[in-house]
């Protein structure tokens, strides 16, 4: 018994050492989160990763939504399995600049359900960091499930230096929920970079005019109320749904569209906020 216990302790120390080593190679880490589900975290995480990579940065994308991992599908990498070099897992390569790790690349099929409680989830997320050959990265973007459960908590506790990007839709229900996300960040001492309002008005495909389907301006107001920066807004656009379902990142496939321009404005703002900070 003694032996297994000290073995386990040694393994944990070794994991902590590897986590520290991996994190040293990564410059900026963003945790994309929201209080409410289905508001576009994965969509933003994927397009942000692809856009930063397109701008020449080395980027990692990690999906810690263990129950509903969607990022591989959105990147057209569904069904690809991760390989290992014996001691490290090799992340999937989207292109030269973008490496991706997701629970779905470890599951047998896309219908498999992960039924795990806290400790197992925490272990899996720690492994996503310690056992993956991330290499030197300018950015690591982490997509999380909605809410303030084990996944964002583990990231906040294990990945020192991670900062939150909070996604909301404009309606009050979602705003109420992100106030909890911001409180959560404060409680676990994770800095909040700011709020992105998604599905911020629908561009009517018939007349091109904007319809405020979920109201408008809620994200900006919440940012003011909570004293965090407002990063920008992305309209509701049927082409974004198509692109997500087809596994063709919107920002690459419709670079000239109005929504892509809004998205690039968001990324510009994010980068300029980073520069100011540095």
């Amino acid at each position: 018994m003694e032996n297994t216990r000290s073995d386990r302790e040694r393994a944990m120390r070794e994991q902590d050492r590897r986590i520290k080593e991996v994190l040293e190679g990564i410059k900026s880490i963003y945790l994309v989160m929201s209080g409410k589900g289905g508001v576009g975290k994965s969509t933003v995480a994927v397009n942000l990763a692809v856009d930063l990579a397109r701008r020449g940065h080395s980027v990692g994308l990690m999906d810690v939504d263990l129950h509903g991992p969607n990022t591989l599908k959105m990147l057209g990498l569904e069904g690809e399995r991760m390989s290992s070099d014996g001691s490290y897992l090799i992340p999937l390569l989207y292109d030269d600049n973008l490496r991706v790790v997701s629970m779905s690349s470890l599951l047998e099929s896309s219908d498999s359900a992960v039924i795990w409680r806290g400790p197992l989830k925490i272990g899996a997320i720690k492994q996503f960091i310690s056992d993956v050959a991330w290499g030197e990265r300018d950015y690591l973007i982490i997509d999380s499930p909605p809410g303030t459960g084990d996944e964002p908590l583990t990231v906040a506790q294990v990945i020192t230096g991670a900062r939150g990007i909070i996604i909301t839709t404009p309606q009050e229900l979602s705003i109420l929920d992100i106030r909890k996300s911001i409180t959560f960040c404060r409680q676990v001492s994770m800095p909040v970079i700011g709020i992105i309002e998604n599905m911020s008005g629908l561009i009517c495909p018939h007349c091109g005019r904007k319809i405020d389907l979920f109201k408008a301006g809620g994200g900006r107001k919440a940012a003011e109320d909570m004293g965090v920066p407002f990063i920008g807004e992305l309209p509701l656009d049927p082409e974004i749904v198509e692109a997500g379902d087809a596994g063709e990142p919107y920002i690459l496939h419709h670079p000239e569209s109005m929504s892509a321009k809004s998205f690039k404005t968001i990324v510009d703002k994010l980068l300029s906020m980073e520069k100011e900070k540095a």
Partner: protein
Amino acid sequence: MIITVASGKGGTGKTTVAVNLAYTLSQTGKRIRLLDCDVEEPNDHLFIKPDFTQKFQVTAFSM
């Protein structure tokens, strides 16, 4: 009868369906209990604005 409203995806309308289902069934004269088991972001009460008559202290493990 116990009906659980669940989904793998966020933002798909679980709360909207649960609340409206409970309300609609209650209109048939049946006695209904609506349990909001979303421990992080419970929202049912925002939709039906009940009068809370009792409150209990709940203790969870600390972080």
